[in-house]
């Protein structure tokens, strides 16, 4: 499935990218589709792609034992996930599963980091957005933890 600049402009994550920067993403990305109950990746899987949810529904969680999944949250359209693909040791900290037919943008993490080296402005902007995603996830987890501790 071919991706266009217009497609990306409709995705919240790409709000403040220039057309030239969006072309970089198009060159290193593909669209992947998943059915209900498809697991995109398991906790502790080695990750090679960063994903952005285009449409559908995804649940995210952790496993405390084999076959025992705990759902921690859901992802919204335009949200980035599997950020571990650009940070050593490139191991997933959670599992992600489709709960309805879902379409994601899969960005090749190795090619993305190579683009960061070639284009610092693009790299800084993208890493800032990834850091913000992680920061929000951490803040939400603390919020969740505080809720549990004060029950």
């Amino acid at each position, binding site marked *: 499935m071919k991706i266009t600049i217009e497609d990306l402009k409709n995705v919240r994550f790409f709000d403040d990218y220039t057309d030239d920067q969006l072309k970089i993403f198009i060159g290193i990305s593909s669209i992947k589709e998943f059915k209900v109950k498809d697991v995109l990746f398991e906790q502790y899987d080695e990750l090679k792609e960063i994903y952005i949810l285009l449409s559908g529904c995804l649940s995210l969680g952790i496993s405390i034992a084999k076959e025992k999944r705990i759902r*921690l949250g859901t992802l919204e359209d*335009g949200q980035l996930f599997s950020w571990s693909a650009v940070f050593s040791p490139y191991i997933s900290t959670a599992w992600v599963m489709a709960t309805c037919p879902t379409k994601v943008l899969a960005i090749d993490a190795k090619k993305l980091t190579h683009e960061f080296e070639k284009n610092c402005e693009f790299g800084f902007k993208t890493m800032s957005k990834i850091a913000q995603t992680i920061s*929000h996830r951490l*803040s939400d987890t603390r*919020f969740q933890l505080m*809720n549990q501790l004060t029950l």
Partner: protein
Amino acid sequence: MQDNRNIYTPIRARLTDVIEESPSIKTFVVVPEDKFSFKTGQFIELSVDGVGEAPFTPSSSPLITEKLEVTVMKTGYVTEYMHMLKPGVLMGIRGPYGRGYPVEAFFGKEVLILGGGCGLAPIRSLLYTLESIKDKLVKVILCYGSKTPADCIYKPLFDRLNSIEKFEAYRTVDKADEDWDGSVGVATTLLNKIKINIKNSVAVVCGPPIMMKFGTIRLLEMGYKDDQIYLSMEKNMSCGLGKCGHCMMGEFFVCRDGPVFTYDEIKHNPEIWK
């Protein structure tokens, strides 16, 4: 002529209906025997003879004056007693007290409302008010989180809001059950879902202190200015008059000067999230 009534004397109000909203939250419909009105965000003292009184922000529309709805979470002696009351008994109400939402300041703007738990009670009153002035607003977005699907109050409200032009309503739960197919996560995760013009927007936050703290931090990160965020400091209300001193928060008496404040007004107080 001087009014010699004791300011602590309630007016009588008959309890006409009790609606179970969740396992620990009920809405009490009371009909005052005297004329009574309030502005959205203001609060009242609701009392039970021989038991005591407690402050609550009405959850009904301020435009309806013949009856009043008060949503009460079972948390202590008075509220536990209230949860046992049946329609027909006489209760007491006094007030209204404090400063409510300055809805005129919302004209021409997008209004984002972030709520959690029982905080949806005062928000419902605000939503009714905003619905009545929707022609003067750009849009209204409600993001609400409850601990579980069973803890979500006013369930029919969400479909109703989504059917009103200019209104959007989203809800999430901290912990889902097998029947839940909506969003999972704390209330702030819903902010990833919405599209809002922050520069032309105000945000209203009401809920448990933890939710208000994390919600306000996220709104500031999104780009909201301190004076664009309205906080309803429900938890701090006490006698209603600023006399007993229990509601003191820095230089403010929450009962008298609040319960609605902008974050700009109270951000310097280290105790605002307690």
